[in-house]
């Protein structure tokens, strides 16, 4: 499956990654190589094979519904760039 530069730009935008114009051909080339390897995998016959959600052959253990965490806001907020009234401050986002 060939991938073109437009698609790379779209994926970069979704992932919030900035790729400079001069980097685009190189990135496209490398991703193409990765996808070529995927194509090899895709060629394997998977008829009748159940899709695997996790490589471990195990079932999810469950935890009892109990509150086990204490309030550690002060400790967590010492490493935050900006806080006010207990809130983490981030650059303004509004839609």
């Amino acid at each position, binding site marked *: 499956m060939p991938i073109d530069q437009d698609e790379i730009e*779209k994926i970069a*935008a*979704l992932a*919030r990654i900035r790729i400079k114009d001069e980097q685009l051909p190189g990135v496209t080339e490398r991703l193409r190589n990765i996808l070529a390897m995927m194509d090899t995998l895709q060629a394997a016959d998977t008829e009748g094979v159940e*899709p695997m*959600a*996790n490589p*471990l052959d*195990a*079932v*999810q*253990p*469950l*935890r*009892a*519904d*109990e*509150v*086990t*965490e204490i*309030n*550690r*806001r002060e400790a*967590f*907020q010492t490493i935050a760039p*900006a806080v*006010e*009234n*207990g*809130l*983490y*401050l*981030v*650059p*303004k*986002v*509004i*839609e």
Partner: protein
Amino acid sequence: MQWETVIGLEVHLQLATKSKIFSGSATTFGAEANTQASAVDLAMPGMLPVLNEQAVRYAVMFGLGIGAKIGRRSVFDRKNYFYPDLPKGYQISQFSDPIVGEGSFEIQLEDGSSRTIGITRAHLEEDAGKSLHEDFHDQTGIDLNRAGTPLLEIVSEPDIRSAEEAVAYLKALHSLVTYLEISDGNMAEGSMRCDINISLRPAGSTTLGTRAEIKNVNSFRFVEKAIQYEIERQSDILEDGGQIVQETRLYDADRNETRSMRSKEVANDYRYFPEPDLLPIVLDEDYIEALREALPELPREKRERFITQYELSPYDAGVLSAHRALADYFETTASKAGDAKIAANWVQGELLGRLNRDELEISDCPVPAENLAQLIQRILDNSISGKIAKQVFDAMWSGEGDADSIIEARGLKQVSDSGALEAMVDSVIADNQAQVEQYLAADENKRKKLVGFFVGQVMKLSKGQANPQMVNQLLAKKLV
């Protein structure tokens, strides 16, 4: 042109667990900002999710409640998007293999008819935090207390055809989840939020029109208004030969309008993939059967039983069974009073009216069911009239005690003493000779009307406490 409205609803239901879906943080509503956000909820490096068994149980109970297929093996996926109230950069959700598959349930409409609405699926996921945009001088404040609260997202088929049906669906859903006690159903606190997918198509058409999605509507009334507005907006565009843009819109309750949420078109690509930090949930038959057996009586079953057991009308049975606490209140009143019909009238009339007026929930009702039952017994044994009973009820509502003590303290007991009543009747006759002559001159038909005057006078004299049947008998004897 005639347009048909096609609506599908996605309801995000907060499950009533004590702790979060993937961490041991508390889920208490209204806590101080970020005091219930642990390292897992904050997405600190190396933190891993561990699934809460109660969230799984509640999801399965919901599935059983709507007769859905339960996923014997379900899987969590990552839904990737960037927003500061989602610190991991993805939401853990279920995409390909949800815990609850197809099901359906019945809704009741105002005109007494019912319809079946299909449920496509219901899946477990985590809630995001809250963004506060005001008061932070060009910054946004983030509170992650809500991040990781377990949600069950319930997706309906596009089977809903009007605002009324949408509201009926939400009410039925609310009733079901509160019966199951899997959610507190508190809409004001965001325990039940709704996304509305709505499109129009020419009546008779079977293909779907282009839809708009209205996000995060959180009250029955707003759902109704948002749909009404959106039907108008879309039909105006279509009538003018325009086309509906597929987009996300926001309902603004202050202006009663919906408006487009995103200024520029963003590709809606969540790049779902299986969550590698969680293993598949596998449920065995014994587990599911045990939960099925433990299910309480559900709203629809209770409604049917009220109709047969108490001979209530379908409408009355529907009102009384809509909320589990109200249904329990009614049943206690009915059994203690010994008359279900009168109990139903009092609960639906006086009690619900008073609760609405004072904006109280049935759980905050100041009159216990036992006291209402006692009041009804006093009507049934002729101690008080229905009119006096309303006075007594008012007094009970304002906390003056139970029915008997209020009747006693206020001297409201109906006068059934024939001597005392006779004296009152005599005095009314003596004081109203003109009306007596008019009565005696009248024919049988007119007399029936005229006698009301005398009954009224006696009631007035007795301050409403005379036994009306006895007054009528005495008057018939004396007015000759």
